[in-house]
């Protein structure tokens, strides 16, 4: 059997695959954060909570309204996205002119409130969401048993990530968005409704988190704390990629998933910290992040 640093090739390849799948989650979540920060300059600490709400919307939708997985894939991001827009309209807008720190504190507080409320009702053990029928089972690749659902997560996440990048960087709508945040007064004078654009953007970023939540529901127990565990890692990913860089968020997300996956093979004790080590290194050598523009 071929070995790579003392690990059989098959195990090594399997770990790379899993790393990539985890990376897809990081990419989806950090993409939403990057869109919100890049265009709105809001450090959205409620992002993990939105991801959690997406998973809960999926679970409760199935339990009480009979909404299946495929419908939830559309509806949950929509509902959570609308909820995000209400928050933007009623709260975030009012502190838009203040320092970033206030937005950070507000969204962090909101996250704690959502989390605490749900802990009160559902506890923390988490509930199981069944894997949809069409995506059950798995196939034996040359090197590992790959559950169909995980392959689907990777595919769906990549499509959504690239789609988002395309819309923002390559379409007219994206151009409006970028211009609207660069110079709102000028855009307004061209007749573009900038406040609406901002609300929609926040809603979209939040919807991306909720979409990741739907994808996560059959994989991990749906529990109120599922978001906060992930959020700090995702922030590290955004910092490594460069705050606000769309492509940076996607590529760094996938890359960090891979690095974390390899750490789990060679030194599992450090699996939870390796991303932060990378973050420290990047901040020392390239403070603007790997894909950020030097200020």
């Amino acid at each position, binding site marked *: 059997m071929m070995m790579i640093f003392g690990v059989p090739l098959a*195990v090594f390849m399997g770990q790379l695959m899993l790393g990539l799948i985890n990376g897809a989650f990081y990419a989806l979540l950090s993409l939403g954060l990057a869109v919100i920060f890049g265009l709105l300059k809001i450090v959205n600490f409620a992002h993990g909570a939105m991801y959690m709400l997406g998973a809960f919307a999926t679970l409760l939708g199935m339990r009480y309204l009979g909404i299946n997985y495929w419908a939830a894939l559309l509806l949950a991001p929509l509902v959570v996205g609308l909820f995000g827009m209400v928050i933007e309209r009623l709260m975030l807008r009012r502190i838009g002119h203040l320092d970033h720190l206030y937005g950070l504190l507000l969204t962090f507080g909101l996250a704690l409130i959502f989390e605490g409320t749900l802990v009160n009702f559902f506890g923390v053990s988490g509930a199981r969401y069944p894997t949809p029928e069409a995506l059950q089972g798995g196939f034996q690749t040359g090197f590992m048993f790959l559950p169909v659902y995980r392959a689907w997560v990777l595919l769906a996440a990549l499509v959504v990530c690239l789609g988002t990048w395309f819309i923002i960087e390559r379409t007219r709508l994206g151009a409006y968005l970028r211009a609207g945040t660069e110079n709102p007064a000028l855009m307004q004078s061209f007749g573009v409704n900038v406040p609406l654009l901002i609300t929609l953007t926040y809603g979209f970023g939040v919807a991306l988190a909720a979409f990741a939540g739907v994808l996560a529901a059959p994989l991990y127990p749906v529990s109120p704390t599922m978001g906060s565990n992930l959020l700090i890692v995702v922030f590290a990913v955004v910092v490594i990629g460069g705050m606000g860089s769309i492509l940076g968020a996607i590529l760094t997300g996938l890359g960090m998933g891979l690095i974390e996956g390899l750490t789990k093979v060679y030194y599992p004790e450090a699996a939870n910290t390796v991303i932060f080590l990378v973050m420290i290194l990047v901040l020392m050598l390239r403070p603007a992040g790997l894909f950020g523009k030097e200020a």
Partner: protein
Amino acid sequence: MTFIKKTLASSIAIAAATALAATTAQAEISDGEVRIGYLADMSGTYRDLAGPGGLEALRMAVEDFGGSVNGAPIEIFSADDRNSADVGANTVREWVDTRNVDMVAGMVASSVTIAVTNVLKENDKLGIVSGSAASSITNEHCSPNHIHWVYDTYPLANGTAWAVVQQGGDTWFMLTADYAFGHALEGDVTRVVEESGGEVVGGVRHPFPTDDFSSYILQAQGSGAKVIGLANAGADTVNAINTASQFGVVEAGQQLAGLLVFLNDVHAMGLETTQGLLLTTGWYWDMDEEARAWAERYYERMERMPTMVQAGVYSSTMHYLQAVEATGSDDTATVRKYMMEQPINDFFARNGRLREDGRMVHDMYLAQVKSPADSTGEWDLYEILATIPAEEAYRPLSESQCNLVQN
């Protein structure tokens, strides 16, 4: 001369009076109140196995006792330790300094418990540990100031690991939570597996807590071991079992051994995922009439069936309050001595006895998770396969490293 005699005589009299005062003070309830602090993870990974449910069980015990001991009211307060040793130890220090706490109940994460028991020892207060698992709590970390009530890693390994090896599962891969409890359980399991003629062929220590077990499950699959031993607890065990089911571990011929599985874990995962799992438990709500009667009273208040930890909080608090009543004192040494002298037989503990190392030994049970077809209700989850007698279940005193034990 007379002057010296007089002074001497009077100082002896004063010393005697002081000594007498000290003894009478000991036979009293301090501040005229019995104060019990409940410390547990109220919001994190271990919330559902103890948490608010354990606090409710404590309240039930106090209510059933009548709310006071020999006329002294019983006061309860509680705090969330957030699974942090620092937070736990500081909370208890504050309880000692500002509220003169008499007994600390609950205590879940072993790392928190070990930190808290040091504070209790420094301040001569009593702790009754119901939630923690590490057997080291009454071994190298034993003290005259705490008692370990419900279970520990020694019988968990003795029961489950022994039974699995007997069934032919003789090569093991260990998935271990990387902190005091996981290490203790891993050590106890390795010993039992090897003594029963099996072998531990590999293992991985994962960070606590971990959401994503796919990588570790893949490593366990690659090891070729017949059994994957889960030396973790709470949400970690739930995640590991779920992930194993997604990766077709059992279908591929490997067996899972959950070494510390609580009722709420099985309930959360569902029988479809967990059926056939062997586990060791200190108590099960449906194991007999007495247990059922208590569990149903609990259910009316919490709308969940109690875990062994929650039942243990009630049982240990009752035994404590009886000791305070009988001795008329809430002094740690007095109460603990009386608790040791009384055999313990209630809805929770059978053939129970408190040993000098602080370990409460009682019958333990080997259980198997029912299949969905065999289960008759939401909480009908276990079948009890065997009773492990109290004296065989726990680490014998002859092997103890506790300095309270004369070896």
